[in-house]
């Protein structure tokens, strides 16, 4: 009996210890604080969306019933849809529903959840494709450029990345279409539905390239600048060189490794802008993602659909920032959160 009790006590002590270790971990504390501060931001975004949507003419019922519907029928449908309620009541109703995982119904009568379930994966695939390729390319290219600053490779890379930084994605998309779809006919002008890896590359390569070129430019410039800076002023680089470590190894193992932290942060912070770019590119190539859906939703005054998609966009932005912070806290032991200068 006493033994059982002792084991029980030990177990409890162990659990307490583990709990303390967990809550004591700086990364976890940062995560907790960040998650908490994300909540008011998300609520603010939904409120802002709702306020902005009230700028749109409140004509959903009319749009559903058609122009010839009698005013009484319109009023009745307005009542069923809850559109005659005051602003606060509608907002509260919507917020409670969203917290229960119900985003409402689109004008066409389908559920927004269903709409999102179909279209979000396509957008995610597109963005991931663009992101992975541009990050991978920029690491290689930036290392090439930083190996000899102001050399020929460096100058070419800087020029190309400056172009990438300054090219509007929609203009670049047309250039891609003219060259690869119209002249070379390698890829279709309009992307079809994605099914299987073959059609994935066939349909999403051009849109991903249109999104990825700008990203590639940003990441490359950033990595290159950071690596060149380290190679010139950090002591561990001098030490490594003095030890006789070959130049390539110094660049990749010492400089690049540290620069990757900066890259991770920027990738996280950029996610928000990325979904915006996706909206335009998806419209051009007719990719069936949420960006395309959003533009259609806006021209149809489909308020529930726009709200759902805006919330998804905001979620991506907020969690991108969160992940960037977390990655930084976990990877870089120098970061001590709690000091108030950031």
């Amino acid at each position, binding site marked *: 009996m006493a033994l059982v009790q002792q084991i029980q006590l030990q177990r409890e002590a162990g659990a307490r210890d583990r709990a303390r270790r967990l809550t004591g971990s700086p990364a976890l504390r940062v995560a907790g604080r960040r998650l908490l501060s994300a909540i008011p*931001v998300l609520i603010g975004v939904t409120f802002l969306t709702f306020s*902005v949507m009230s700028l749109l003419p409140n004509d959903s019922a009319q749009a559903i019933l058609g122009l010839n519907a009698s005013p009484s029928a319109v009023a009745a449908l307005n009542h069923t849809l809850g559109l005659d309620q005051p602003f606060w009541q509608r907002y509260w109703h919507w917020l409670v529903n969203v917290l229960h995982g119900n985003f409402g119904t689109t004008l066409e009568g389908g559920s927004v959840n269903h709409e999102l379930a179909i279209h979000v994966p396509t957008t995610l695939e597109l963005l991931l494709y663009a992101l992975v390729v541009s990050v991978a390319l920029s690491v290689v290219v930036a290392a090439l450029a930083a190996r000899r600053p102001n050399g020929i490779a460096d100058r070419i890379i800087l020029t190309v990345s400056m172009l990438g930084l300054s090219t*509007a994605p929609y203009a670049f998309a*047309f250039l891609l279409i003219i060259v690869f779809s119209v002249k070379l006919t390698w890829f279709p002008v309009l992307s079809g539905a994605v099914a299987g890896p073959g059609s994935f590359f066939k349909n999403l390569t051009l849109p991903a390239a249109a999104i990825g070129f700008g990203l590639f430019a940003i990441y490359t410039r950033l990595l290159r600048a950071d690596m060149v800076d380290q190679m010139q002023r950090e002591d561990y680089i001098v030490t490594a060189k003095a030890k006789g470590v070959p130049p390539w190894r110094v660049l990749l193992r010492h400089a690049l490794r540290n620069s990757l932290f900066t890259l991770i942060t920027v990738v996280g912070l950029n996610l928000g802008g990325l979904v915006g770019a996706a909206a*335009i590119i998806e419209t051009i190539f007719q990719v069936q993602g949420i960006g395309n859906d959003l533009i259609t939703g806006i021209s149809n005054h489909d308020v529930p659909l726009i709200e759902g998609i805006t919330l998804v966009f905001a979620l991506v932005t907020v969690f991108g920032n969160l992940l960037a912070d977390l990655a930084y806290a976990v990877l870089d032991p120098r970061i001590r959160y709690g000091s108030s*200068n950031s």
Partner: protein
Amino acid sequence: MLATPAPPPLPSLVDARRLRSQRIGRALRLWVPAGILIGLLGICFVLPLVVTLPSSTNGNIIYNNEAPFSPGHLLGTNVQGVDIFSQLVYGGQLTFEISLSVTLIGVVIGGTLGVAAAYFGGWADAVISRVLDILLAFPALVLALVIAEGLGPSELHLIWALAVFAIPAQGRVARGATLTVRGLSYMTAARLSGTRPWRIITRHVLPNILPGIVTFSLLGIGIVVIIEGAIDFLGYGIQLPQASWGSMITQGQNIESVQPEYVLIPSIALVITVVALNMLGDALRERWGVQ
């Protein structure tokens, strides 16, 4: 924000020629993009006052689809016979007007908020930072499109819609810069000698964060130019028969396989403008030692 400039190389190790070429290179990096921008502004705002350009909104259908460098039409005409060069000039006016006013609004409102948040700290900082976070997380494109759809497309609506996205970005930059400056010893000295907050902000904070804000604004103008084009491009910005660079690209889209220059000409104008802005920003950043 104000990093110490790299230590100058020892005089005995560098020759005068190399120093001179470095100096010329630095001057070129500043004045070439500045010259391009002044040239573009001149073409867009001064040229139509000096020379009579063909109408940018009406054209004679008889003279449609003319190739570039045809007589009377420097860059040719589009399907409706409208002169493309005139469209480019008047579209450029709109682009510059919109992007400059958006950035100005962003700097004034966002800058004030950012400086106030960082200088006063505490609750002011918490509230302002959260508001800026919300605006940053809100997709700017959605806002601009909904405003255009709900209030009707106009230049003024477009400016305010885009400003909502410029304000938090500028606010963040101003806040970060002020935080850095606030910890420096001349600020403590100013506070210890009893200088009033208003005077500290105007005399000590603003002059020191201005370089960072100016260089960021130049990059910001470039971003606004691109986003403004995107909104026109989606059909929610400047409406026909007025032309903007973005709407010219859209119109060209319908006939791109026939004559790619309809898309290429406004795109090239857009790229040149943004490259010049970015390069000018980089050059100023280098000169002022802003990070």
